[in-house]
């Protein structure tokens, strides 16, 4: 049973996240190890395993990036264990520029405002890439799958950037 089936869903990039979250509550309740506190050792162990599986599946389903990666994995394209590098110079230049902006943000008059602008810019980019990703995954051809894989590789840099902005935001807000 794959993660989508566990949540009673068809394998698709487009899923109803409200439904996912309510299914999660139900599955979480059904498999919660506390329910099996008086059960046998075997039953307890099984509950822990099922509960972990439910949590893994939920974390994967709610993240667009992980969801897309998982769909490709089901189609035989494994991105998780690859170690290859990308060499798209103009894309990397842009990443470099954004990271430079982030590292110099403290020198600005209003660092938190600058961070928000940067965050907006990157999130806008992510939103438009996700639209593209959905249409590529819908095509279900070998060529589209490879293009989707390339897009996921790029999206990983964008999500990493968002995470770093968040960390910086927290660090700056402490003062």
């Amino acid at each position: 049973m794959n993660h989508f089936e566990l949540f009673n869903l068809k394998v698709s990039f487009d899923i109803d996240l409200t439904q996912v979250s309510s299914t999660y509550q139900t599955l979480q309740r059904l498999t919660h190890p506390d329910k099996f506190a008086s059960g046998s050792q075997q039953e307890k162990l099984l509950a822990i395993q099922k509960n972990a599986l439910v949590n893994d599946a939920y974390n994967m389903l709610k993240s667009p990036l992980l969801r897309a990666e998982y769909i490709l994995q089901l189609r035989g394209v494994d991105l998780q264990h690859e170690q290859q590098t990308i060499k798209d110079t103009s894309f990397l230049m842009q990443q470099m520029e954004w990271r430079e902006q982030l590292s110099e943000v403290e020198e600005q008059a209003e660092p938190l405002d600058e961070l928000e602008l940067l965050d907006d810019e990157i999130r806008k980019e992510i939103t438009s890439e996700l639209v593209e990703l959905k249409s590529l995954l819908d095509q279900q051809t070998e060529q589209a799958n490879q293009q989707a894989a390339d897009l996921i590789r790029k999206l990983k840099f964008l999500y990493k950037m968002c995470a770093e902005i968040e960390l910086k935001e927290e660090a700056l807000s402490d003062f």
Partner: protein
Amino acid sequence: MAYSEKVIDHYENPRNVGGFDKNDPSIATGMVGAPACGDVMKLQLKIDDNGIIEDAKFKTYGCGSAIASSSLVTEWVKGKSIDEASAISNMDIAEELALPPVKIHCSILAEDAIKAAVDDYKSRQK
């Protein structure tokens, strides 16, 4: 996971951080990124008329191992010909820095940065 002393040394005192003017004809620029971790690396080589690397600089946004790997290769490539520099493999880097298996991709990034810079140099020679 503990970093090796060499990684910490390069991380705390990175050699040759910075950049050259990428429009200068003697400068070759290699840009690479590792999707696995979102690290980005820029390596620039200053190459003389005989194809010998006179100087090198890097800028890396990434973890300690990625910074150490790029810092190390800037030291290694100086004085080498572009062919000798291209022969540096990620295993040499990983061994020198005692990188654990989960950080091997950092050394691959540094190896590919050299290759990307050499490719950039060759494409300019044509």
